């Protein structure tokens, strides 16, 4: 099914439950983000990109694979906007719609080591694959 960018933005708002209009553009989410330097589109920009319907750029952003889901942005946001949920929604959109997984089972063996906890694989598969 083909959606316009605006429809995609609405879908992101719906599955994330985020009201992007609540943002006052203070940047505290980005200021709190441990992965900020690794991101091409920053947490605070996710909010305005969705607000403005610039979804294409978000879908191509590498930031969605860098977010740690540590919830620092969500905890510290003065406006209760929850940028982490937006990033999650975009990531889901990518792995659901385009079938573009960021992790394939074939890569796993060489990423493993003796001490690696099961939990790490479980969470990585949840985050990276459909």
């Amino acid at each position, binding site marked *: 099914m083909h959606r316009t960018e605006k429809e995609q933005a609405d879908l992101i708002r719906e599955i994330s439950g985020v009201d992007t209009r609540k943002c*006052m553009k*203070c*940047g*505290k*989410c*980005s*200021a709190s983000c441990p992965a900020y330097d690794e991101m091409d589109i920053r947490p605070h920009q996710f909010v305005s990109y969705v607000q403005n319907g610039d979804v294409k750029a978000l879908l191509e952003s590498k930031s969605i694979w860098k977010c740690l889901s540590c919830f620092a942005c969500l905890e510290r*946001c*003065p406006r209760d906007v929850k940028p982490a949920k937006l990033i999650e929604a975009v990531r889901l959109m990518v792995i659901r719609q385009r079938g573009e997984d960021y992790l394939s089972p074939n890569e796993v063996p060489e990423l493993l080591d003796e001490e690696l906890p099961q939990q790490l694989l479980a969470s990585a598969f949840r985050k990276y694959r459909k």
Partner: protein
Amino acid sequence: MQRIGVFVCHCGSNIAATVDVARVVEAAAKEPGVVHAEDYAYMCSEAGQLKIREAIKEKNLTGIVVCSCSPRMHENTFRQAAERAGINPYMVEIANIREHCSWIHKDMEEATEKAVILARAAIAKVTLNAPLQAGTSRVVKRALVIGGGIAGIQTALDIADAGYEVDIVEKTPSIGGRMSQLDKTFPTLDCSACILTPKMVEAAAHEKIHIYTYSEVEKVSGFVGDFTVDIRKKARSVDMSKCTGCGVCQEKCPSKKAPSEFNRGLNTRSAIYTPFAQAIPNVPVIDRENCIKFKTGKCGVCAKVCQAGAIDYEQKDEIVTENYGAIVVATGFDTIKLDQYDEYSYSTSPDVITSLELERIMNAAGPTKGHLERMSDHKPPKSMVFIQCVGSRCADKRGKSYCSKICCMYTAKHAMLIRDKYPDVEVTVFYIDVRTPGKNFDEFYRRAVEEYGVNYIKGQVGKVAEIGDKLLVQGVDLIDNKRILMETDMVVLATAIEPNPDVRKIATMLTASIDTNNFLTESHAKLRPVESPTAGIFLSGVCQGPKDIPETVAQAGAAAVKVVGLLAKDHLVTNPCVAKSDELLCNGCSSCEKVCPYGAISYVEKEVNDHGIRENRRVALVNSALCQGCGACTVACPSGAMDLQGFSNRQILAEVDAICR
């Protein structure tokens, strides 16, 4: 039979754009009793009022309905117009077709239909109105001001200068309030104490002003013009009439570990203390919780060293009861607690401070004698970071939803003063928006940037972490879209302000309404900004909303004028919409007496003539001077004897019927 006139206001396009006024006129004209109906662009204008007066005379109207804005706006205007035309002012009803109709509905059909129904309800009610005569009540020519900060002092001075007695009740041992804690004031950088102290002295010396310090309002009863107030004078443990203010007791007091409230806990004070050198009155109090004599029974040093013999360990709290015609609330503000904001390390690092703490540090009489230094190691900082909007503009549970208004300007002030006095100190301000509406305000902020080289970075800080003896500020520059990791020596948090926590208790005593942020509500946001909706209660300073000093002083003066306007009257016209008992129906059960909050109902033995049968009965009697017209008694009355004039059972039922027709 009543002869009713209906007047439908367009309010320019405010009503007419959404309500078809012609249709309202047409529908109203068909209602029973209506003998005249017309519409006009602005009913409240002189021309509009003239139309009403002429119609009353020409058509011999006995009552009128005005379909217009809220009765809270213009009920009085139209009552006066009616009275000028010779009918009783209480023969007027308002149908609120603006606030409750045209402003909230978009569909013309829907809004017109509703306006017609609201008009019908008002017509149904006015048909049952009866002329009412207002009584009078006395005005006690003395005012009470609660709070002795700059707002309270200014209000008291202005009232006193107009020739009326004023009492100030201040909770702490001295008047002066927050302003006495400030070092310099924006945008002129005058020294705060230099401009405040003369006012404090003037208030203390004024023959019309009486100051109760270390005192609190305990109980309030009565109503506009005649409040009765109990004031608790807390035991000072020092006889004010004997103390000379020499200060030896404070010097010799062996208990010096209590955190100084005045210095925001940055240093300590003795157990017997005056909060600051220029305190008024210059009479110390003993803080009994920290006094060794009160804790252990041993000590008594202050009594020994006091040559005037003023120390009195036996002193007790004293209750003073006074009557006042008007009460002004000037309870001010405090900064919010920051224990919910530990991403900025306020709880863990002594070098992270609030702006109010910085005021004390910058002040020559403060804990560092005015030297800018870190509280951890007393070294002068080489760089400082200011973080704006800490706890302001928050939609979460931690902070406040409003802008605290003063922070942008005092931060520019701090930054400028520091760059001026210590040019080697790097100063960075992290901001979300810089808000500088006010005379010479933006110019002031620009000077901080352009002349003093203060570095303003747009973007809220995410975290402040202690690394070694430095603080690492983690933020972003939203303009450069770049990570900022900045090592600094001190961090200053522009902490949100909130109304003094005591204000809720005071507002409850005064039955003055308060908003969800604990700011007192004004009677009208634009037109009656210094009056509480509760008659006789006035608002001065930050208790009403965030304000800087010039605004506070202006509002304090405005509140004083309103008080003077009230006290200048010899008597007040009372609300005639009071309860009235039908003695033939009254069964003497006392139900009404029990629910009356004003003690306005008493029972009398009286001879009544019940359809020819004369007998002595115990019946309720309402004192119309005391009754405030709440109506609690009318519902409590099991026999339907008690009714409220102006809001009678029949009138309200007629409205219900008209709405549900």
